[in-house]
């Protein structure tokens, strides 16, 4: 099992590009990639976890909704995500555990303000025996 996520350039914003063996792992990689844009994940302890469930009409909208949960956890509750475990994923529904801890300004330097997860050039698709994904964030 392998998953990988990296950022790429977009003029005013930043993109996430990921590949993984399964849809669940792809969603994990992208969600963790977003968490890393907000704050260095290696400094966020998985002290607490919260379960999120999303439903959407297709797999791309599903990815936007799941990643938005990571953003909302911070924006509404100051909860930084360090690790994401997608416990189930189909093309239209996913459940995930977001493990992390409340933002502590002494330990967690925030990197960038993320306004939203966009639909622009959004791609979540099977490729070969795995999955690839591309999401652009509005900063």
């Amino acid at each position: 099992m392998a998953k990988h996520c990296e950022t790429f350039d977009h003029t005013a914003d930043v993109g996430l590009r990921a590949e993984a063996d399964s849809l669940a792992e792809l969603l994990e990689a992208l969600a963790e990639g977003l968490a890393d844009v907000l704050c260095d994940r290696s400094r966020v302890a998985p002290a607490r976890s919260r379960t999120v469930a999303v439903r959407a009409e297709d797999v791309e909208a599903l990815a936007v909704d799941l990643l938005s949960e990571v953003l909302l956890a911070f924006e509404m509750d100051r909860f930084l995500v360090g690790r994401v475990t997608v416990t189930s994923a189909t093309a239209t529904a996913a459940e995930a555990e977001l493990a992390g801890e409340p933002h502590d300004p002494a330990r967690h330097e925030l990197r960038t303000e993320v306004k939203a997860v966009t639909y622009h050039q959004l791609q979540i698709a099977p490729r070969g025996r795995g999955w690839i994904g591309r999401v652009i964030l509005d900063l």
Partner: protein
Amino acid sequence: MAKGFEGTVEQVDGNRWRIPRASWPAMRVDGLIYSSEALISEVLSGGAPAQVANVATLPGIVGASLAMPDIHWGYGFCIGGVAATDVDSGGVVSPGGVGYDINCGVRLLRTDLDAADVRRRIEPLISQLFDDMPVGVGVGGPFTFDRKEMRRLLGEGVGYLVSRGLADAADREATESGGCLNGADPRAVSDQACRRGASQCGSLGAGNHFIEVQEVADVYDAAVAEAFGLAAGAVTVMIHSGSRGLGHQVCGDYLKVLRSAPGEYGFDLPDRQLVCAPVESPPGRQYLSAMRAAANFAWCNRQLLANQVRASLSRFFGLSAESLGLRQVYDVAHNIAKIERHEVSGRPRRLCVHRKGATRAFAPGHRELPDRYRKTGQPVLIPGDMGTASYVLVGTETAMRETFGSACHGAGRVLSRKAAIRSAQGRRIDKELASRGIVARARGRTGLAEEQPDAYKDIEAVVACVAAAGLARKVARMRPLGVIKG
């Protein structure tokens, strides 16, 4: 990732480039890019012209899909994009044509302070502002509004702050639309959006948002500058911020609501980020009601930021805001959709004008302008990069005829944030700015690198193009003295 534009682009004149409607069957109108010989090759090498063509496919679009000279690649619409749809002929509203930061905009304050004097004290002044102002990622403001207060703020905009003694009539008059869009419905704003924004009204945020202390370096039109309260050698303060988390969430909520709309209304869209619904449809009306509430929030945000700037300057100089001559020149939105009346093919039409990284630039005599600017035309505030200059222009009849009364909103990015950080490696941007006499303070480690002057187009070339195309006239040029960022 952006490829150069492969469609047809025809040069119309020195400041206009057309993407003909005939070049792609899905286009309903031409694309028209305002640019110059100096700027166009960089524009055509990126992804923005394809976005201008995509926007030309929106149902009900009239005139042309327009892009201002600060055009750059966005998501859905390009930044610098202007599109008007005919409300009474099925025209659509698209949240992507406004963007996530609803009513991101600029406010300019003028003072009687002498720039030469302030330059000598700019370092401690910027430190004071940096200490006093809530800036940075996720940093909230000193104001909190409970549910009931938030409903009034969203519904009434700056008028609500006037009732609380947090704004006065002069502030309100010097704000686009009087700081309140009619038809805002707080009930259309989700609880999540309200929670994201509850503690953020009166905070700057991060990214490209800033507060800049400037010197009026050049005056091009003395009479108009005087009417705007601007004099050469005086100090101004520019504030750039938007609707914070509340607006971001409103946009996200309605993109979700509208995900199914293209299928429902039979629209075939080239980019999901362009989802839209007829203005006169339940989801279209609902989005506009929520967007207007978020716009009102943004005007209140900039009002509360301006109040804190006034208090900070008063503390620093030991003088009241009144004694400092600290007054608002104007406040403009640059991410917004508004219902306006414009002539199309000689007939007055009710249009939904999307401005995505574009500024309203109404001509003299327009009935929507406040009395004090009715004769001059609307002040058009154009922030440049933090190392060069910002401009005040004034709206023209040409803009009314060609661009639904719109002009550019800034310099426009050329480097991505990552590329800007790469190019800043091994450099101290704050020191480079200091060598130009500009004091810069930022909360985040990468903020100054991302926003360094090289990350932007040349503001002089952008404004020269706007002026040469006749979309707005130059009134004054301001040089930065110091800036604070998130």
